[in-house]
């Protein structure tokens, strides 16, 4: 380890703490807010640090679909039979990719804590739409209920688009504050402080705020709830070297998910856990885009122009309802797969090396190519603010010219006009003949022929962090030698070992982390 690494920094007797509390929570998303409320419920004083200008993290932009079961009140209302044992059986089922590799100790705890976590949400003002949802994952019975969207439109980052997670995080933040937790916005954790003496206990954190360091002592514990790692190119490539810089991220440009919690914990010896779950292809680690022509076009995330962060989004994107309407080409202007497919087969083709000898990893930008007939059929208006002409949407009079107009930070070389023209000519022949002999797109319907022509950013999107820090069942972080790092906790997408998509595990282990930290002797 390097001499100046945080783990070997000078001992802390001279550490001057600016603030002191029982429990410090890093991150005010679903896991962090659950931890804060839980810690307060168990008598601890709490400071939450959040790097963003507002609370919510990734959960603020989520659909608010909360995966908790076990026979909760709403399940019973709908006659759904469920139990903690059934949850456990489902989520360790060896037949399914999203359950096969999970840490069964974590799943057992999750199963046993779903019911009290559901009640915890109700007790803290979270309300649900009464409609039980069966999910296409390891769960064998409907366990998902959706929270109501927050009722104040200008306090929702992506309003009017079913981002009902706003109702979850706003309610939890409201409750946390009411119960006395202090939430410090625009405080970015820069390191976790661990004692150099024999106890090796975590003592607190240092955050950066207003250009100054703020050292916050944690008498009982520090909870990492920073939301995962998809936004950190170097970190995510530990699990999948293909994921170079060009890929979109769900949650951006609001929720960075830049692995700062994982890195700070690893700096003091923390271990990762169940890293293979990130690439098991059983969950939405990577997804196809749905809103094209904008930098951030995650499937279910659509930023209206009145979003408080629209100046960062820059465009709503054009929503693709039918991939018959466009072809998808790589940076060389070549098709690479059947555009109607959204499976990992498609994604793997998109992430393949398409002949770039300078950059062997990553598949490079993917562009949707279409014509004015598509625009008419889809009733699109391909102008700002619907599209972002600053690198993510281009228009030209001919296909050849279109290729030359593509200028994008991730398009490392000009696209050949001749190559794109040849691709389009060949595709148009498939429309004429009725058969795509290259990629078996069923009955290609529409030629790309009528000017003007368009190229829209359609590069795949990274979504879930399905691996992260190793913890025990109390959410205590474990080091590389298998020992608990005293006073350090992790919950949410930064936690490894349980590759369940969504908010359920974040809330359960956030609540556990807050409770256990609060109950520790300081």
């Amino acid at each position, binding site marked *: 380890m390097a001499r100046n690494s945080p783990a070997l920094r000078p001992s802390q007797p001279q550490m001057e703490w600016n603030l002191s509390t029982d429990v410090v929570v890093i991150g005010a998303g679903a896991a962090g807010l659950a931890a804060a409320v839980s810690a307060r419920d168990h008598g601890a004083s709490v400071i939450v640090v959040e790097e963003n200008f507002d609370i919510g993290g990734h959960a603020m932009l989520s659909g608010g679909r909360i995966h908790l079961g076990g026979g909760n009140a709403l399940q019973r209302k709908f006659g759904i039979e469920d139990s903690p044992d059934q949850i456990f059986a489902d989520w360790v089922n060896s037949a399914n990719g999203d359950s096969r590799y999970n840490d069964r100790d974590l799943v057992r705890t999750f199963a046993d804590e779903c019911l009290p976590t559901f009640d915890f949400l109700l007790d803290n003002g979270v309300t649900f739409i009464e409609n039980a949802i069966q999910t296409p*994952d390891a769960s064998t019975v409907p366990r998902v209920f959706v929270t109501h969207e927050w009722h104040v439109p200008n306090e929702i980052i992506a309003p009017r688009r079913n981002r009902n997670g706003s109702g979850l995080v706003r309610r939890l933040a409201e409750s946390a504050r009411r119960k006395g937790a202090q939430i410090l916005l625009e405080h970015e954790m820069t390191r976790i402080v661990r004692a150099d003496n024999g106890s090796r206990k975590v003592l607190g954190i240092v955050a950066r705020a207003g250009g100054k360091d703020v050292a916050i002592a944690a008498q009982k514990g520090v909870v990492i709830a920073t939301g995962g790692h998809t936004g950190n190119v170097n970190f995510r490539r530990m699990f999948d070297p293909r994921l170079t810089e060009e890929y979109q991220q769900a949650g951006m440009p609001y929720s960075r998910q830049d692995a700062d919690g994982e890195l700070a914990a690893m700096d003091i010896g923390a271990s990762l856990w169940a890293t293979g779950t990130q690439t098991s292809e059983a969950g939405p680690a990577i997804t196809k885009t749905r809103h094209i022509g904008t930098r951030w076009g995650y*499937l279910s995330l659509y930023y209206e122009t009145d979003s408080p962060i629209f100046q960062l989004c820059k465009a709503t994107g054009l929503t693709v309802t039918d991939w018959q309407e466009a072809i998808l080409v790589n940076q060389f202007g070549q098709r690479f797969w059947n555009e109607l497919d959204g499976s990992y087969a498609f994604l793997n083709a998109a992430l393949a090396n398409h002949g770039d000898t300078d950059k062997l990893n990553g598949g490079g930008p993917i562009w949707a190519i279409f014509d*004015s007939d598509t625009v008419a059929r889809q009733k699109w208006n391909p102008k700002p603010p619907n599209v972002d002409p600053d690198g993510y949407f281009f228009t030209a009079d001919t296909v050849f*010219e279109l290729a030359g107009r593509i200028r994008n930070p991730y398009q490392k070389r000009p696209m050949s006009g001749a190559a794109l023209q040849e691709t389009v000519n060949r595709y148009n022949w498939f429309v*004429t003949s009725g058969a795509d002999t290259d990629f078996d797109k069923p009955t290609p319907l529409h030629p790309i*022929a009528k*000017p003007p022509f368009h190229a829209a950013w359609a590069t795949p999107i990274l979504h879930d962090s399905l691996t992260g820090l190793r913890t025990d069942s109390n959410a205590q972080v474990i080091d590389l030698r298998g020992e608990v790092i005293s006073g350090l906790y992790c919950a949410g997408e930064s936690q490894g070992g349980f590759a369940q998509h969504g908010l359920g595990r974040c809330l359960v282990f956030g609540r556990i982390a807050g409770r256990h930290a609060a109950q520790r002797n300081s």
Partner: protein
Amino acid sequence: MDAASIAVWDVPLPAVAGATFAIKVGVKSHLGATLAGSAVQVCDRDGSVVASGMLGAQPWPGTDALYWVALDVPAPAADQAEEFAVISNGAVSRFSVAATPRPDHTLTVAITDQDSAVPLRDVEIRLGAFHARTDAKGRAEIKVCKGEYELQVWRNAYIAPARPITIDGDVSVEIRMVHVPEDHPDARWVR
């Protein structure tokens, strides 16, 4: 950089063998030149010029400077597809067209939602080389040739199986499509 590039559109699907079919050809100068009055040629696979014209005075609507002309091109022989080259201002582009005998029958297709019986507009219909799109009343008439086909229909969020169909005169078909709502984007995954 190439001095110009070409777009070809409104190519029929299919053309009628032995007749001519109309296309539009647009040419864009990459050097900023005004191409009004420039020559355009269409050549067959042997390189013979089969159609020619001069670009008009006004760019195609919605484009910056795509000067265009409508041309009539002789169709290939029946049941053949042929690729043509379009040449103008030093640029070459290609397009393909399939030809059938002159269709002498009419297929009338009426498409409704299976549950609501509401007519479905904008349904794409494919019948071999022939295609059409339903109107607001959920109807389409397609001139087709005698023969055996597979009738395919396509509309986003609806499904109906392809069905064999024999055309030996004017034929009417009613199709009921099943609505399969597009998954809410959140529905695929839990969050």
